[in-house]
């Protein structure tokens, strides 16, 4: 599998001129993203494309490529695959659809399986956009995508949903290590990718989008193993029964009983999110934050409402927001002024005096010395007031516990602050519920890792 995701040469069979063809897009992606290996476009009717010489067929290549990306139609693709096998190409992608998800395509899919078994070919797809090894700039992908390098691997049964989650992560300012559109999973299954990602040093966190799988047991075993090594979160579609049919015509797999999947995820130690957006938030949290020592949390804010929203969710996720020590309260009053008309407790609502970084910072620092396991710092952006970015970063360096920032504002207006904070390893969320969800995921993961018995009360 290492060779599959890090090929030193790639043949693109069926490249064509014209921006709208999949072959063009795949070649463009490889070149544009700076693939360091050797690229061999194959098309008998073309001399060259994007400055690269084209080859009439696979036999004409100067070497046996590590990976062949097959970009021709569904019938022809099977012939090309067989050709690959004969030449000793061991890794392939078929992008075309029209196999088991379509009535007339079942036999062709069986043929693909047979060819791959006969020649020991590892096949991604068919019916896939391809994959991306973001860290190594390898983009055998026929669609436009945007991703920054990072350590989250996404494995998606749908290209479209996989892209959606990738875009959401991009918006959240976190990066990917791998992006894999598994397609019909005729040969390589979810389990194969999960087993590989368990050993992939570039990947710290794994996200899955699942419609359904035929071999639930193998999926379960692989997921359980992967989750024992690194955090794994999933979004599984199929709350409504009607979704089954739509999923079947999509990738030829019944979406399967949602409650059974949910049970299996819990048993495997996989966190389940309820939407692509939630999955992105959960992945960001798991990827950026160290696990907390315990479940005691403090919140600092100067606007009460959002802290109450966060707290409402946090308590449901199992966090405790315990009262402040009397001594800490006394010290906070000293900072914000004894006469400030507010009852200081946890969440600590500084009200007016909190607008000023020179008040906010000492209180925040004080809280980091109090017996809490995690700090949630809430700040409401106001263009007249400086966000205490430097102070927060300084505290992050000193603090031995996870810090999460909720920065209320229009994302494009606070992009720079978010970027700086996140570069320093402080995850920033723009709504209180996202911040709470992130911390909820963290606590869930902690409980899984500790293998703690579920307390029954």
């Amino acid at each position, binding site marked *: 599998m290492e060779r599959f995701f890090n090929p030193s040469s790639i043949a693109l069979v069926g490249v064509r001129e014209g921006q709208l063809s999949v072959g063009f897009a795949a070649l463009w992606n490889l070149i544009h993203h700076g693939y360091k290996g050797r690229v061999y476009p194959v098309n008998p009717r073309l001399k060259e494309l994007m400055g690269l010489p084209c080859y009439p067929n696979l036999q004409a290549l100067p070497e046996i490529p590590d990976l062949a990306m097959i970009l021709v139609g569904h019938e022809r693709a099977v012939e090309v695959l067989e050709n690959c096998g004969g030449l000793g190409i061991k890794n392939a992608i078929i992008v075309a659809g029209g196999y088991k998800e379509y009535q007339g395509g079942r036999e062709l899919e069986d043929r693909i399986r047979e060819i791959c078994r006969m020649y020991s070919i590892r096949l991604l797809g068919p019916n896939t956009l391809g994959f991306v090894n973001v860290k190594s700039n390898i983009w055998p992908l026929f669609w436009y995508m945007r991703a920054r390098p990072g350590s989250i691997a996404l494995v998606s049964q749908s290209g479209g949903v996989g892209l959606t989650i990738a875009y959401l992560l991009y918006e959240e300012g976190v990066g990917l290590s791998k992006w894999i559109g598994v397609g019909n999973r005729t040969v390589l299954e979810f389990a194969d990718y999960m087993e590989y990602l368990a050993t992939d040093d570039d990947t710290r966190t794994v996200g899955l989008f699942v419609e359904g799988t035929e071999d639930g*047991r193998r999926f*379960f075993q692989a997921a359980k193993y992967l989750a024992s090594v690194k955090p794994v979160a999933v979004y599984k579609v199929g709350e409504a029964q009607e979704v089954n049919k739509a999923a079947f015509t999509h990738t030829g797999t*019944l979406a*399967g009983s949602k409650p059974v999947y949910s049970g299996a995820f819990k048993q495997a130690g996989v966190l389940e999110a309820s939407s692509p957006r939630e999955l992105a938030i959960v992945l960001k949290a798991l990827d950026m934050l160290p696990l907390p020592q315990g479940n005691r949390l403090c919140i600092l804010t100067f606007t009460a409402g959002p802290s109450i929203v966060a707290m409402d969710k946090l308590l449901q996720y199992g966090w405790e927001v315990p009262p402040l020590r009397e001594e800490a309260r006394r010290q906070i009053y000293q900072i914000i002024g004894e006469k400030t008309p507010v009852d200081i407790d946890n969440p600590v609502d500084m009200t007016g005096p909190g607008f000023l970084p020179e008040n906010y910072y000492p209180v925040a620092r004080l809280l980091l010395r109090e017996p809490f396991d995690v700090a949630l710092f809430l700040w409401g952006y106001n263009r007249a007031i400086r966000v205490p970015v430097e102070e927060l970063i300084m505290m992050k360096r000193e603090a031995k516990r996870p810090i999460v920032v909720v920065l209320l504002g229009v994302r494009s207006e606070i992009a720079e602050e978010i970027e700086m904070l996140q570069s320093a390893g402080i995850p920033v969320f723009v709504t209180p519920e996202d911040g709470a969800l992130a911390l909820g995921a963290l606590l869930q993961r902690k409980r899984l890792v500790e293998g703690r018995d579920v307390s*029954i009360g």
Partner: protein
Amino acid sequence: MSQLGEVEAKAFLANEGLPVNPTYEVESLGEALEKAGFLGYPVVLKVSSEKIIHKSEAGGVVTGISGPQELERAFSEMAERVRPIDPNAAFSLQPHLRGIELAVGISTDPSFGQVIMFGLGGIWIEVLKDVTFRLVPIEDRDARQMIEEVKGEKLLRGIRGYPAVNKEALAKFLVRVSDVAHSRRIQEMDLNPVFAMGERLVIADARMVRVEGR
């Protein structure tokens, strides 16, 4: 494949060390009265027929029968209701239990294979579908999670004068059901209701489908 009705299924489960409500097949009213005298009232009378899977809906379950006269009436009325469906229908008699109603099931998922389900009985399962699943076999930790997961969990803390369900005992029970299903290749099983009374759990109704040959 073999289908086991209530009496056989309970015998099978008792043999595996699971707590069942002793249940006797009776063919005549005389036999019913005799068994009831021996078990002590109140009792439950049920129809026992391969043709009637949903006994309650066919009018084949009468609970809380408090004396011989009531049993006589229940028996003749039930016979009238079920004989048109199955002229050879038999009947069964068991002690009437009280407690918090639970439901435990085994099914075979096309993708995941053997699966165990847990939920609260009655409307909780029928209407609200408040159930949770795990893949068989489960560990103690999974069983505990299942118990905490159902929305009706609060009811386990005691309702309507029933004592709180002992969750440790319930977790052990779930693991045992899962182990039996696993080792004895049970394809489908319905334990509904299972009555919980503090530490005690008793299977009051059961049916199952097993793979032959073990």
